[in-house]
């Protein structure tokens, strides 16, 4: 009886909470892994695009836009931003000799500018966004806030849609072909540079969507991009740079490790466990759990 009680009262709530966090991290990591897998660009400003999505949700909610409309409107509004960033900035250094270093520095610089712009526009304080649903559900004696359940549900749908488009549609096949061999693909008449810009825009939109979804849970503030980006990078590295399913599995695994470890050690100390796992993967299995989209 005591064990059942422990599972119901202590273990299960902790694991469900870990699942909600896992979905949140995967949502942020999804855009990151797509941009890396296809464009071979390590997007250091991804966290700030996530923050822009959250601030967008905050601003639109203030003028009375419904949360469900925000879910579609914010990603749509952010797509042109992503498109322009790719066309105007990334493209300029994309063909340079050391693409990794130059795009990493470029996007890092961009992240600093974006964060300071948010601070200048909205001030340093934390803002609250109300969740569209309140209250909690009682699942077999486990109390879970409704919004976390909703987050898990929407997160699963988004992940499945992205995976379906990438692996099961003609568009996805074209995109994967462009990333595998862009010269061969363009010789077949595919506008590869537009595909690249479009993919970057989709990655940025996904970051924006994550921002909208996570704003009610984690509040909105200018430096919010930093909070998730380290965890998201660990997920992308452990999962295998560019692999969608890798990111999903790594995201779920790492957050469960974090959730269960925080039962016995202070939650503050679970970060070293997560980053330690990432370092171990970099040492012994640098390609991560799975390959990358273009090479899968």
């Amino acid at each position, binding site marked *: 009886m005591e064990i059942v009680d422990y599972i119901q009262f202590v273990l299960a709530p902790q694991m469900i909470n870990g699942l909600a966090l896992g979905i949140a991290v995967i949502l942020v990591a999804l855009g990151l892994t797509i941009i890396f897998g296809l464009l071979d660009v390590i997007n250091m400003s991804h966290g700030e695009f996530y923050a822009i999505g959250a601030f967008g949700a905050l601003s639109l909610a203030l003028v009375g836009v419904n949360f469900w409309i925000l879910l579609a409107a914010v990603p749509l509004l952010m797509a042109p931003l992503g498109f322009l960033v790719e066309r105007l900035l990334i493209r300029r250094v994309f063909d340079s000799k050391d693409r990794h270093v130059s795009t990493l520095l470029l996007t890092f610089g961009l992240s600093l500018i974006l964060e300071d712009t948010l601070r200048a526009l909205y*001030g340093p*304080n*934390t803002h609250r966004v109300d969740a569209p649903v309140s209250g909690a559900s009682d699942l077999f004696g486990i*109390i879970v806030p409704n919004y976390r359940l909703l987050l898990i549900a929407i997160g699963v749908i988004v992940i499945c849609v992205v995976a379906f488009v990438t692996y099961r549609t003609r568009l996805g096949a074209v995109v994967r072909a462009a990333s595998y061999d862009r010269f061969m693909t363009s010789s077949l008449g595919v506008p590869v540079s537009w595909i690249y810009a479009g993919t970057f825009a989709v990655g940025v939109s996904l970051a924006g969507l994550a921002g909208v979804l996570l704003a009610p849970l984690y509040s909105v503030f200018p430096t919010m991009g930093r909070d998730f980006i380290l965890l998201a990078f660990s997920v992308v590295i452990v999962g295998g740079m560019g692999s969608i399913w890798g990111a999903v599995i790594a995201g779920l695994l790492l957050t469960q490790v*974090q959730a269960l470890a925080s*039962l016995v050690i202070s939650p503050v100390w679970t970060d070293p466990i997560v980053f330690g796992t990432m370092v171990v993967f970099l040492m012994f299995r640098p390609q991560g759990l799975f390959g990358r989209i273009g090479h899968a």
Partner: protein
Amino acid sequence: MENIKRTAAAAVIFSAFAAPSVALAADAIKIGVVTPLSGTYAAVGQPVRWGLELAAREINVAGGVGGRQITLIFEDEEANPSVAVQKAERLFQVENVDFLTGMVNSGSTLAVGQLAERNNKLASTTVSFADSITAEKCSPNLFRFNARAEQQSYALTSWLGKERPKAKVFGIGPDYEMGRSSVAALKAGAAKNKVAIVGEVFAPLDSKDYSQYFGQIRSARPDTIYTSVAGNDTVRLLTQLDEFGILRNTSIVGSSGTITSQNLAAVGKASEGYITGTGYSPKLDTTENKKFVGAYRAMFKVDPDLFAADSYSLLYAYKAAVEKAGSTDTDKVRDALRGLSWQTPEGEKTIRAGDNQAMQPMYIVKISKGQFDVVGDVRAEDAIGPDQCTRF
């Protein structure tokens, strides 16, 4: 609100200039205030500012300090020790302030205390709880005008020991000087009053999601949760505890700064039944307090809280000390402050000469229907522990 603040500030400045020139009143006395005006603790800095502004106006209208008007100079501490030190340095060096107060983060108070010592000036806090400020890390140049963690915890645990002798308490503190100190003080008080502590956990200041800490709370199965978070952290912690159903079978107790008039509305129904050991409630039934609450409400349209009352009282202690010393000279004012007793909205306060810590009566306050009801009190001498400062 902005308008009221501006009007109030203008009133202070105006009265500074409009004062009749007495022979003594060559210059205004400049007091620096380094307090959080943005961030997690903005809700704490605001009442500090208002308490000081109200006292400054009253004192200036009544003729100032020994004929000299008071000017307050505000800087944003951002609840960040390194920012606090920069701002304090500027106030000491550039503005040449005579006295400094306002720090909220205990780390800021300790750092500014050291800075005051190097500059041979006086600094003070009316908010920071960490015991070390007037114990092992005490400074002859640093005064504390509010009740520290030990005084609050003693009051709270003596009440728990009496009213809920079988309580199993779990402590959650912010992960820095104040949080660690307040939970340690809780444990010390609990040992004296035979209250069981079943666990403790510390979350970083300004945590957005406390749910990852709930696993340890659940495993310990407490019936009472103690917390010393403050400002917006309180709003998030209590809302999330409520959302995850933990408040269904536990009650909340905590430090005096956790729920105040400033964040009460945002905390909402999770505040009902909250119990704390504190130095102040707006409902204290004394003449001084009624006068203070009336004036504060008239000026800012809200009830004062602990931080406002302590900051308001501070300025009157400083006035008494400067008038007794006959100057704002650091050594003379320090001597005058030590052992000083004065009347405040919280009752009579005395600065203990041995460690620069204010002694005051403590109250047990319970929040019911949004009111801070006083349900018990503890004498000043009982709540304060021995003087642990060995530096002076």
